[in-house]
């Protein structure tokens, strides 16, 4: 049984108070099934979630119709990211460091 995760929204409130994601390019490392990603997906200009777990990413992508087209999920590990240098304004280690 999957739990209800942070229904109070504490994680989102603290994250948004710590950085500017609106119209920014954001990378979320360790996005898992995208449960947190979806909470702020409407704000950035570009949002990429990466995770090494294929099953979690599959679940994230199944929810993709709920996400804006500027949000993407990619299978990758934190130690070897398929992105150019300096492209993100915000990089989030989401319980993944």
């Amino acid at each position, binding site marked *: *049984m999957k*739990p*209800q995760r*942070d229904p109070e929204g*504490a994680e989102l409130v603290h994250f948004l108070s710590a950085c500017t994601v609106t119209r920014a390019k954001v*990378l979320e490392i360790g996005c898992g099934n995208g449960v947190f990603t979806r909470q702020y997906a409407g704000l950035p200009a570009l949002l990429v979630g990466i995770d090494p777990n294929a099953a979690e990413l599959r679940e994230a992508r199944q929810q993709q119709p709920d996400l804006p087209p500027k949000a993407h999920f990619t299978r990758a590990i934190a130690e070897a*990211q398929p992105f150019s240098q300096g492209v*993100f304004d915000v*990089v989030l280690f989401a319980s993944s*460091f």
Partner: protein
Amino acid sequence: MHALQEARRVLAPAGTLIDLRPICVDAPLEILTPQGSHSAGLVDMSPDIADDIAADNTFKEAVAAGSLKQVKLEEFDFAYYWETVDGMKADFEDRWKDDAILPAGVLRKARRLFKAHGLDARVRLRIRMRLSAYRQA
């Protein structure tokens, strides 16, 4: 390449790096009812402590080297809710077994409290989270 080095590589100059993760301190497990919360005891969150300390040290080294500047540090509560104790136990066995230890006595007490409070009861685990924000130098 280390994860932090790689994160810094893709981060823009003056960009913000956020490290958001649970702290390895015991987490209260509670049975919630319309009348209030009832403590079942503490869940041991220490299995990840070596990784946690290593991660802390990696960030400290980056700050000491001048690669990152810490701009924010805060802690807050973060809760998971389950509809039943059995559901919580199954979830622990499925996804949390490397991260937390649910002591047998705490599980027993949770079951007893849950049974006593019936259909209105829910299970809550309150984890302490830490958010650290850094500015890329």
